[in-house]
């Protein structure tokens, strides 16, 4: 189908099949635009973005924003209820819970972002190699990925973290090990489909080098979906880190970390504030990320996408 026809008949579903491939530069900006639309799409997604931005500011500027030291103890004021001087109360060692929750974000949020980034980079590389090379290499890499995927992730991460010993970096290694296959599968699928597109065949026909084809034609077109998925997974990364922390396999005390804070608060559950506020912190950021992710997913799926506030693509 020619370019002119497909431009004029956007209302016709069938004509989209043969439309011209958008250039990679155009594609990249498409996702930014989609994101902005998602932000404004519903009240819930707008609030979510505000919460996420708020947490990111806290992560960056906690020492400036928050007075006090998250590890300073005041044994006279142990387990005191929320008051004006301690809005979230204090824990068993008289440490201010508000300060610890805010500083805890500096551990938990970078942990979530970190594991997802490393897992996505690793998964993308492995997936690209598998998709591009094909054959036996593809077969072997994907069978390994399948085997890792067939473990319930928390259980495998728990076994790994236990084997390596408790510690923040070890729990990160454990989560990355469990997570890379999901990205490599996605990336492999994308590479396989992009590889056959006309513009790759065209580039090869005009004599572009393999390196150039991979760098400038395949990668920019295959990567965005992986990027989106990874961004949406940050909430799960934070949750997974908190789970391991709760099980005592994450950050080592006295580092403030949400999961381990809930675990120590669970021992004094009558003093509800010790465990409730770190849990609400986890809830606030994970829920926000999930709502935003769900909205973006909705908008990206042409079948569930609605017309309100959203033009159909092209």
């Amino acid at each position, binding site marked *: 189908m020619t370019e002119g026809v497909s431009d004029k008949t956007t209302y016709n579903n069938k004509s989209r099949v043969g439309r011209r491939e958008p250039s990679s530069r155009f594609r990249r900006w498409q996702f930014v635009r989609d994101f902005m639309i998602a932000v404004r799409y*519903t*009240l*819930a997604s707008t609030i979510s973005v505000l919460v996420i931005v708020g947490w990111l500011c806290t992560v960056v500027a906690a020492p400036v924003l928050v007075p006090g030291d998250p590890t300073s103890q005041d044994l006279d004021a142990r387990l005191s209820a929320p008051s004006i001087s301690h809005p979230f109360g204090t824990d068993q060692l008289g440490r201010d819970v508000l300060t610890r929750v805010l500083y805890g974000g500096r551990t938990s949020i970078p942990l979530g972002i970190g594991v997802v980034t490393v897992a996505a980079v690793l998964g993308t590389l492995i997936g690209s190699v598998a998709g591009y090379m094909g054959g036996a290499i593809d077969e072997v890499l994907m*069978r*390994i990925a*399948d*085997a*890792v995927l*067939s*473990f*319930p*992730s*928390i*259980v*495998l991460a*728990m*076994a*790994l*973290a*236990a*084997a*390596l*010993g408790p510690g923040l970096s070890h729990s990160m290694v454990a989560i990355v090990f469990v997570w890379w296959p999901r990205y490599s599968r996605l990336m492999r699928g994308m590479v396989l489909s992009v590889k056959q597109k006309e513009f790759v065949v065209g580039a090869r026909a005009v004599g572009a080098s393999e390196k150039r084809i991979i760098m400038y034609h395949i990668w920019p077109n295959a990567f965005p979906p992986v990027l989106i998925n990874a961004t949406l997974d940050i*909430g799960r990364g934070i*949750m997974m880190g*908190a*789970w391991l922390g*709760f*099980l*005592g*396999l994450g950050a080592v005390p006295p580092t403030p970390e949400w*999961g381990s804070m*809930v*675990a120590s608060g*669970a021992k004094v*559950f009558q003093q*509800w504030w010790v*465990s*409730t506020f770190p*849990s609400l912190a*986890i*809830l606030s950021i*994970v*829920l926000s990320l*999930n*709502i935003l992710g*769900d909205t973006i997913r*909705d908008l990206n*799926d042409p*079948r*569930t996408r*609605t017309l*309100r506030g959203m033009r159909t693509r092209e």
Partner: protein
Amino acid sequence: MTLQVYIARRVLLLLPTLFGITLITFVVSHAMPVDPVVAFIGDKAAGNPEIVQAFREKWGLDKSLPQQYLAYVRNLLRGDLGVSLRSQRAVLESIKDHFPATIELATASALISGVLGISLGIVAAIWRDSFLDQILRVFSLFGTSTPVFWLALTAITIFYGKLGWAPPPGRLDVLLTAPAGPSGSYILDSLLHRDFAVFIDAVKHLLLPSIVLASYALGLITRVTRSAVLDAMDEDYVRTARAKGLTERAVVYIHVLRNALIPVITVVGLVYGGLMEGAVLTETIFSWPGMGRYAYQAASDLDFPAIMGVTLAISVIYVITNLIVDILYGFIDPRIRVT
């Protein structure tokens, strides 16, 4: 392709996966930075050269890595998952004891989250983009975004501690004796023995943990149902049904739901495997004597043979659940069998 061939193919595809699983557990247990002898038999026994020698021979530690892997698989096939450092019991025996409790909990949660999630998903799809849809979106995502461990703690404090509606954590009241039954599920066994006091008590104990665990899966099921129903509503046969003058109610019940439920059933099945994850935390807090709690105890005691054994056992259950889902899928939708 006939159904028999389809099932046979699925079962055969299980073999490479199982091979991969054993390979990974093997690698994990060999990649740790501590001496495997000490990790597997404990400090005390490691001081005794005879025990060390016997252990080395049994697991082939003095041989090459591929031979060690073969020894590992050979022991697995004999049902030998090692001996727990803490309890000195065979890991396989402990897993057998804990298995029915987890299955009971996961089944109850899958039922609750399945029924509730499918209903909410249908409602959200029918009134899509309404205010109700937005509320349901936030509500269903709430469950997946709330830390399960905190939800469990709060539920115990409120429903057992404050209101006294729920029994204390555990599977059964201390004054009652567990039914000696064939299945290990207290609910099924007490019904078989017509012991209704035990049955009612077991249900009461099961209710709170299964609701907490269900909240974790609810979000996923609701979202998948919603998009499946929306997909089905887009189909030509729905337009045809509307065009021939069926009421909206008839269109939804007869044409949309039957087609939408195919992907939904798959997800409920997959979630069943995923509930194994949530079970680790839920069981720990509710003192539910299942595999999740066993895994947690093993991990916190650094009881290495137990950790590796339970990891292997849970992932095998996970894989088998997926297999059953695949087979069910073939039953429901004949088109699947072709690919």
